[in-house]
């Protein structure tokens, strides 16, 4: 037995995990690290299921060049030759790297060094552009550096906690649980959630401001105006530590930002808005947590700036329980920012357009070719690929064909690009499908390095598994290419530790306190010390920044830059009457390449969906679960509609996770416009005008197979992998016959059991090869076949079961039961069980936990448990109040 401390590879909370590897059993257990400052032993549902995701079935284990397996030597030479050839023909600006917040800091550092320092272009951007670049830009503009001022503890210490643009209960569950615990300990602590949707997070709120889509900027502009007119303005702080305040006041006064008109613009009740403003005025310990709802906007930098201003004018920054707090989405978005992995950064929080910084980095890296001008940001980068200005792109650890806005343009751009190199740990993704060269990267559990979380803690991610196949760490792959390009002298790394020391040394190089990011003290770590490095917050030993009121602007003062709130650049109209919002769901991560391997995580939300208010559904003649066609000016998706009363009428919501591997047409970013914030270049993923119409379908089907098989032609399908079986649900309107299906699957099965219907309203097939059941298919008109997935998994290889029983797809007689919706993933507890427990007297989450175990592991489902408790209680009180409700309604 061997226990290794590492960090979870999902969100930006950066929870520590303790991984136990047994010497003589393949079983690997992943638990929360009690000693890690971020989580103190807690893990969310995704982190708890990490052990399920370590299989090799979907892994890329060998390099491939032009579709053929290749040796490393061949593949690396191919990359180097094609890169050199492209530079020769089109110059260094025809090269681009598109990297990821999933890379470790060391990988990131080497990628950035190679392209900016030696290839000589700053065309490196990262998926953090889609996530954090607005916060980065606002921080730099206002604070002078990309610094998150506070720490997680501030969220617990606050008397007023504002959560804006974040469904933390699902996206950052462990920080959310720390807040829940703090609120339980101090019920007087007030929580305000600003979100156009009712979410698991808003369940906790004392005040939920369900604002109109895209109106955040008016809300914070109104707050600033309200503060400026209030006695809470911190004149001394403003005088000593800020600049340009007078202009801020003057401009604010010129705008119509009185409470009434703001409430109107935001679609809010004036009273509620006033309450929020009053709470902010009278609560010194205020923390504003902001995330994608603020960042992913065409005026994100302005609204994030306004949040910073509200804290600056009240002096609420750098104090315990008082700060603005940007919470990041990815495990190492912060590390990427530290090494300068964005196209408009240089390295170590230095700027490309600062000649001092340019000279400093050139000297440190000993290069003459350091890029002199900012490179292309993500959206522009892929546009340049489409237009042939970029001819060579190297994509690492990310899936832009799914995650970029106007994703079909990105797909088409890559299809037509001369050279597409993809480093990934997964064989089949929407992006690897377009690669000319595929390089097998090490995955979580194998690679080793550091990541930085949202509160500036640098933690070691440690490998505990051998590198499988030919997989290699990203830093090794990049360094090998660098050597073949003739830059061996600058890339002679033997380990991640070598790189980390160099990175730390650069952060300290001629710093002398002029730059916020300085981890020079770690540059002397020897390999053993690096290996043993405990989670370390920067600046070293400092929880909070700006406590001294000193900022990293030239003047040392925070800057009030002018901000002009404007309406959204797009509007809904008759053709596209609904606002589409996008985001994560509780149990999935990004494009599901990892979480999709965990059966338990695949049971919470099982298909791509669009959430819609019942009134909007009625208007379109939609029933819950109907497949619908969602269209924007850029693309189309087919997903299932879900009735959500928590969704404002006129607004819809889709998740970001599904892709062309897992569904017929559910890449939500094919719909989203590539409209970006003009400063940060971050796309506005939260507001796209769309239309929704019912997809004409006549039949519904379920396909189960023991390996991946061709999917029959269907207007809609989505697939999941559960305990060794592939489950695909389908719907369509052109009827199918058994002959077509048997032909489609003739490679997989040759012996068939079938159900046929004279009216072609139902069809079932079981296909076997010589040994075992391979395919199970059920189709019918009207509604989806009723299938018990767990039963099928348990009985797939059950020799005693007749084909007829197997074909039914669920237990007969007393075993049959209605399962409902999965609520607790850790203990696999469904809503039906919970409703029964509530009916039987469980009246709070702890009672439910004792009765059913739900919510007793990671706690991610506790908001949903509360919602269930409330809904059952509501139903009860309704019936108590109206014993004759039914009769009354008949009158």
């Amino acid at each position, binding site marked *: 037995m061997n226990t290794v401390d590492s960090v979870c590879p999902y969100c930006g909370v950066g929870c520590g995990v303790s991984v136990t590897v047994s010497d003589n059993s393949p079983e690997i257990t992943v638990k929360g690290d009690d000693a890690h400052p971020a989580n103190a032993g807690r893990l969310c549902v995704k982190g708890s299921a990490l052990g399920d995701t370590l299989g090799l079935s979907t892994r890329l284990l060998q390099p491939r060049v032009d579709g053929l397996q290749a040796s490393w030597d061949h593949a690396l030479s191919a990359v180097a030759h094609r890169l050199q050839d492209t530079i020769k023909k089109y110059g260094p600006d025809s090269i681009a790297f598109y990297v990821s917040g999933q890379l470790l800091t060391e990988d990131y550092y080497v990628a950035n060094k190679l392209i900016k320092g030696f290839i000589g272009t700053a065309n490196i951007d990262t998926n953090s552009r889609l996530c954090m670049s607005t916060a980065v830009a606002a921080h730099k503009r206002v604070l002078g550096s990309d610094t998150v001022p506070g720490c997680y503890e501030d969220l617990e210490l606050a008397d007023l906690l504002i959560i804006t643009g974040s469904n933390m209960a699902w996206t950052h569950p462990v920080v959310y649980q720390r807040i829940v615990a703090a609120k339980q300990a101090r019920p007087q602590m007030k929580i305000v959630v600003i979100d156009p949707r009712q979410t698991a997070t808003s369940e906790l709120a004392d005040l939920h401001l369900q604002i109109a889509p895209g109106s955040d900027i008016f809300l914070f502009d109104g707050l600033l105006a309200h503060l400026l007119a209030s006695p809470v303005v911190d004149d001394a702080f403003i005088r000593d530590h800020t600049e340009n305040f007078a202009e801020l006041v003057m401009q604010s006064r010129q705008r119509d930002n009185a409470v009434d008109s703001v409430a109107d613009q935001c679609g809010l009740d004036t009273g509620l808005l006033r309450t929020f403003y009053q709470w902010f005025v009278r609560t010194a310990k205020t923390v504003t947590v902001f995330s994608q709802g603020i960042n992913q906007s065409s005026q994100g930098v302005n609204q994030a700036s306004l949040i910073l201003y509200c804290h600056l004018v009240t002096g609420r920054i750098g104090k315990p329980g008082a700060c603005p707090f940007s919470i990041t989405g990815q495990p190492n978005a912060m590390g990427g920012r530290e090494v300068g992995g964005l196209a408009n950064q240089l390295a170590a929080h230095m700027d490309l357009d600062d000649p001092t910084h340019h000279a400093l980095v050139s000297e440190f890296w000993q290069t003459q070719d350091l890029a002199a001008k900012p490179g292309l940001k993500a959206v522009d980068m892929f546009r340049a690929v489409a237009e042939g200005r970029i001819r060579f792109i190297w994509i690492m650890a990310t899936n832009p064909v799914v995650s970029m806005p106007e994703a079909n343009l990105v797909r088409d751009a890559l299809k037509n690009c001369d050279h597409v190199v993809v480093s990934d740990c997964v064989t089949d993704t929407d992006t690897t499908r377009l690669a000319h060269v595929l390089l097998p990267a090490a995955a979580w559990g194998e690679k080793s390095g550091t990541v930085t979380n949202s509160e500036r803690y640098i933690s070691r991610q440690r490998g505990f598994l051998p590198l499988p196949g030919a997989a290699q760490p990203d830093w090794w792959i990049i360094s090998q290419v660098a050597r073949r390009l003739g830059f061996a002298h600058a890339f002679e790394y033997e380990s991640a530790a070598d790189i980390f020391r160099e990175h730390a040394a650069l952060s300290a190089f001629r710093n002398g306190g002029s730059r916020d990011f300085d981890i020079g003290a770690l540059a002397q770590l020897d390999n053993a010390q690096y290996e043993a490095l405990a989670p370390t917050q920067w600046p070293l030993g400092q929880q909070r920044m700006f406590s001294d009121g000193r900022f990293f602007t030239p003047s040392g003062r925070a800057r009030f830059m002018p901000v002009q709130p404007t309406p959204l650049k797009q509007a809904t109209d008759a053709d596209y009457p609904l606002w589409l919002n996008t985001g994560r769901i509780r149990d999935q991560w990004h494009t599901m390449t990892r979480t999709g391997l965990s059966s338990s995580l695949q049971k919470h939300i099982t298909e791509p969906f669009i959430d819609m208010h019942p009134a909007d559904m009625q208007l379109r003649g939609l029933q819950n679960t109907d497949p619908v066609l969602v269209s924007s000016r850029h693309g189309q998706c087919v997903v299932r509609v879900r009735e959500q009363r928590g969704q404002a009428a006129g607004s819809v919501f889709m998740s970001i996770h599904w892709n062309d591997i897992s569904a017929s047409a559910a890449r939500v970013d094919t719909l989203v416009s590539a409209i970006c914030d003009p400063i940060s270049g971050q796309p506005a993923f939260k507001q796209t005008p769309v239309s929704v119409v019912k997809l004409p379908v006549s039949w519904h089907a379920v396909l189960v197979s023991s390996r991946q098989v061709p999917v029959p032609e269907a207007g809609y399908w989505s697939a999941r992998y559960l305990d060794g079986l592939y489950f695909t649900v389908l719907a369509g309107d052109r009827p199918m016959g058994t002959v077509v299906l048997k032909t489609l699957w003739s490679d997989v099965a040759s012996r068939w059991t079938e159900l046929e219907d004279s009216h072609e*309203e139902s069809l079932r097939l079981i296909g076997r090869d010589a040994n075992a059941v391979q395919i199970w298919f059920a189709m019918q008109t009207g509604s989806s076949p009723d299938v018990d997935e767990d039963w099928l998994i348990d009985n797939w290889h059950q020799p005693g079961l007749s*084909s007829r029983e197997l074909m039914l797809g669920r237990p007969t007689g007393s075993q049959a039961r209605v399962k409902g919706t999965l609520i607790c993933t850790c203990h696999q507890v469904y809503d039906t069980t919970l409703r029964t427990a509530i009916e039987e007297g469980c009246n709070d989450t702890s009672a439910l936990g004792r009765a059913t175990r739900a919510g007793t592991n990671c706690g991610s489902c506790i908001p949903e448990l509360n919602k269930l408790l409330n809904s059952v209680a509501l139903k009860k009180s309704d019936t108590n109040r109206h014993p004759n409700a039914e009769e009354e309604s008949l009158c």
Partner: protein
Amino acid sequence: MPSPKPRLLVVGFGMAAGRLLQEIAQLAPGQFDITVIGEESQSAYNRILLSPLLAGESDTSLLPLQSADWYRSQGIKVLTGDPVLELDVEARLARTASGSSHSWDMLVLATGSRAARLPLPGRDLDGIISLRTLNDANDVMARMDDARQPARNAVVVGGGVLGLEAACALQSRGVSTSVVHNAGWPMNRQLDSEAGEFLASTLAARGIRFISDAQCERFVANQDGQRVAALQMGDGELLPCDLVIMAVGIAPEVSLARESGMAVSRAIAVDGWLRSSTPGVFALGECCEIEGEQFGLVAPIYQQAQVLAAVLQRHAESGLNASLTDIAPYTRQALPTRLKVSGVHVFSAGDLDDLSSLASGASASKRTLAWRDKERGEYRRLWWQGECLQAAVMFGDVDDSGIYESLIERRVPVTASAQALLNPAGLALS
């Protein structure tokens, strides 16, 4: 002094008569002076068990419906082996072959049916047997067990239930057996063509040759001109045989009724209370027909026995003009069929006449769902008429046959779904 009991004469002593006497004993014990006269030498026995008997899976002790003691204790006068040859309905008098006369106040005809015979040349040769009575069965078994010249090759003419049961029995006893059938598949009256194919391949697997759409030409005698030696087919093929079982259906035994001037079409016409056109004369079982429907299966005949017992009791108590309106008449019912062959599970229920005109699933209007597993030899098909199940055919796996029987009989709406076909036990019915 009590008035004398009404005299009830029952002519025919097969299963219908046997069942009727049981019903009367239960409903109206001691109310009648009963005489029953049968042609066969045994009192009523379970004719259904003749096939298992032939297959060696049953024995004669299991056959009788009631013991001699029971008839005695009920005061029933039993005459066997003495067929009634003549009825005088005016005088209400029956005369038997032995010359005895029996008068009645009420007469029940339960004369059953005879095996039909094909009018082929050579049909009277020795070795051509219809399997109808216990004597027939004994005859067949004697020929198989004949020490000197045991039967080696058999031809069964007719691929219906009885013929197939006989064929399987013979084959299982080591007699090489062929079945010739004048339709496209076995049990075509009860099964659709696909179930028929499953059945035919099962027969083939047992070594039975099944010849469909067969034309029989003539029986060929052996050298001494007495015994059957072969059946010649329309195409000239000779099927060598020393035993022929004729199983081409039954003909109601109606000669007494016809000679007595009672209304007879194909069988003795009776109403739902089993009353013939002659007052005081009733008929039930295979010899009767109700609104054109004839009977060959035991379930409807047992229902008739129940109705008739009540009718007779009413007449005994209130005279022949008594009103019967409060007695529920016989009603038509679903007629499930099961083949009684070990290891061959076939079930059929519902409106079969209609089905025989349907090729599997061919009719555009008729909703049908089928499930097949060729590897395991399992098949089932359901037909709907409107919202209700009309018929069901099962082969191989007949676990749910009782459920389908009940669904068809009760005429409850059943959604045409995979559930109905694969797991009818789980159907939520109103």
